């Protein structure tokens, strides 16, 4: 558990220390990539709790989601339609659903253990 946290901290520190700033034109891409990353992360946690976690699925999901989001945003810019909003919406919905499932599973596990104790 400590390893991902440590790496998260390292990543944030790196990002702040390198002082990189994305030009305005590309900030949409980055925001959507961050969203996709969160989505994949929560999906991974859910899969872990459901006990069907798979490295390959996780890794490909991570990169595929980010790429798809970026492509969608790019096409949107080319067509003059805010297509990246579609990605934001999709990822947002999935984020909430994954979170809800995780919550339920955690609660279920706790309740179950309580019942068993009784």
């Amino acid at each position, binding site marked *: 558990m400590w390893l991902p946290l440590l*790496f998260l901290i390292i990543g*944030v520190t790196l990002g702040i220390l390198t002082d990189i700033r*994305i030009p305005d034109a590309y900030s949409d891409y980055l*925001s959507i990539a961050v969203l996709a990353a969160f989505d994949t992360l929560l999906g991974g946690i859910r899969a872990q709790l459901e006990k069907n976690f798979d490295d390959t699925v996780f890794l490909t999901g991570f990169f595929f989601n980010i790429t798809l989001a970026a492509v969608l945003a790019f096409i949107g810019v080319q067509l003059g339609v805010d297509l990246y909003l579609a990605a934001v919406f999709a990822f947002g919905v999935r984020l909430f659903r994954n979170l809800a499932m995780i919550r339920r599973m955690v609660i279920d596990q706790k309740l179950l253990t309580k019942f068993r104790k009784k």
Partner: protein
Amino acid sequence: MKRSTQWLVAIVFLVIGFMVAVQFQTTSHEAQVRETRDVWEVREELKRQQEQQQELLDKIAIADQTIEDYDRSSSRDQLETLKESIESLENKIGLREKEGKGLEMTIRPIFDEEAIGQEYPKISPHLLSRLLNELNTYGAEDVSIGNERFTTLSPIRDVNGATYVNNRPIGSLPMSIKVLANDAEKLQDYMEASPIQDIFNIDNMEIIFERKEQLVLPKFDEPLHLETLEEAGG
């Protein structure tokens, strides 16, 4: 969880952390307006501000002096002070004749001997306005056009094809424009180098400059219509 999986998740976390940090930096630095002036520009700005401050202080000193005169003196002296104030104000807005050194500009027609049926050139209101703008840009203080003193209230208008200043026609060319300026030489240099010459040449006119030590500008003799002006606060 397998060891390799843990590392994988950790690396994904690293990437996420990095992206979040970059995103955070991008959004948090947007609002700042960058200071792009170099030292010299800042110094110039500072100098400008100091000059402005000095100017304001001078004005305050003069106003204070006037107030003091009113306070101190008897009613007769007060009357004198009032008259002085009025005189200086009238001088300022052009209600009195004014003498000084400056530039006399004569606008003359250019005639091409070959051209037959050439129209006698006349100065249009636009052209005149442009000329006055240039003069004011380059430091003219008081201007008279022909026999008309040009003040802040002077209109330049087109009335049935003739150009009117102060509601009177300026007459035909040649015409003289008298300009008082602190530094008449500089004004002349500026005017000779400015594109206004070419614009006049297009309309078959030329401007001849003559620097004079003694110029007399007529006074503005129309009644002042100040309906749209309001008393300044303070």
